[in-house]
């Protein structure tokens, strides 16, 4: 399961699948609140085994859809 499809499922909006990779996940973009971020990271960990919360101390991976996809792909 791809990071994008997990994201689409967590926010409940299939439109996310077609957004550009530069779309910010937090303010100025999807505007995910912190509770949704926690759910997203848990879903990614379950589906891919990549624990972003543990590996990315500064949570830079949460900048955009693309940075998160890349982070999961390289870990």
């Amino acid at each position: 399961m791809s990071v994008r499809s997990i994201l689409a499922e967590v926010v409940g909006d299939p439109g996310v699948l077609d957004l550009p990779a530069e779309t910010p996940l937090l303010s100025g973009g999807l505007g995910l609140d912190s509770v949704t971020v926690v759910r997203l990271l848990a879903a990614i960990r379950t589906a891919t085994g990549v624990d972003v919360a543990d590996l990315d101390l500064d949570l830079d991976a949460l900048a955009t859809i693309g940075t998160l996809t890349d982070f999961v792909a390289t870990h």
Partner: protein
Amino acid sequence: MSGPVKVVVWDLDGTVWPGVALESGALPEPYPSAVAALDTLAGRGILVSVASRNPAEIGALVERSALAGRFVAPQYGWGRKADALRRIADEIDVGLDTLAFVDDDPLERADVERTLPEVTVLAPHEVAGALDWPEFGAGPVTAAALSRLDSYRQRERRRSARAGFAGSEEEFLRWCELRATVRTATAEDRDRLVELARRTTQYNSTGAELPDGPAVVLELADRFGDDGLVGVAPVPHGPEWTVDLVAVSCRAGGRGAVPVLLTGLARLARSQDARRLLVPCRLTERNVPIRLGLKQAGFTAVSRDGDTAVYELDLAAAPSYPDWIDVREQW
């Protein structure tokens, strides 16, 4: 069970009404004894909520029935009732030890008793008797009970305003006219602060007990009302200016309160000639929200030891508060 019960959480099928609503096609008439208990609790300022394995559609029917408007933070769905109780405590911002749970199913009661021993668990036929216990506030309605209901309604109004607000999160916060006070804690604050430190999980850096000694607190208010004390951190100490704990209530953390408290701490440390401020933080999934707050306030990770990382803010330049909030400092 020692403290007062603040919220009574009800199962529905077989507890508030006979039978199974989904199989009946319409809501069954509630038991008169259940309605009488709900009335008594309302009169005492004790909140009532729902933990039901029914789908949300049944909740919508409840809100069109004679029971409409009674239940706060109701939880519908197939998950465990213990999890529903945790969510209710979180949403209403009360401790689990102030919850009572009523269910006709002995298995559900046993599971909650085992998982959450601090919750008072009752079978429906025990409720009438329990209402005479001192824990159920057989006495005058306290100001605290009324303010709890107020503060819950306030959050509901804020939530629905946010849902109808087209702008960005920052524009919404600006529209809310947020006002904060960052100040040193007084002796009278202590009990509330210890409780705040214990209850918070998402916006909590280490999960440590609040140490004795001086602390910095955050008070928050906006156009919807006054939240009072919502955040605490002990005054940083040592040559490295380390902060042992940062704790912010979840209702305030969701409104950007973490960077405000951290900036207050940083300004205090800088005024006392600190060069940098260090915040050790546990690396769990659940407290990712406070790490997002650290990031917003300009902190970056500088080291890691096991499941804890240390975040640092350089104090060469004076940290300034976010511009969507009006902050007053009282040192």
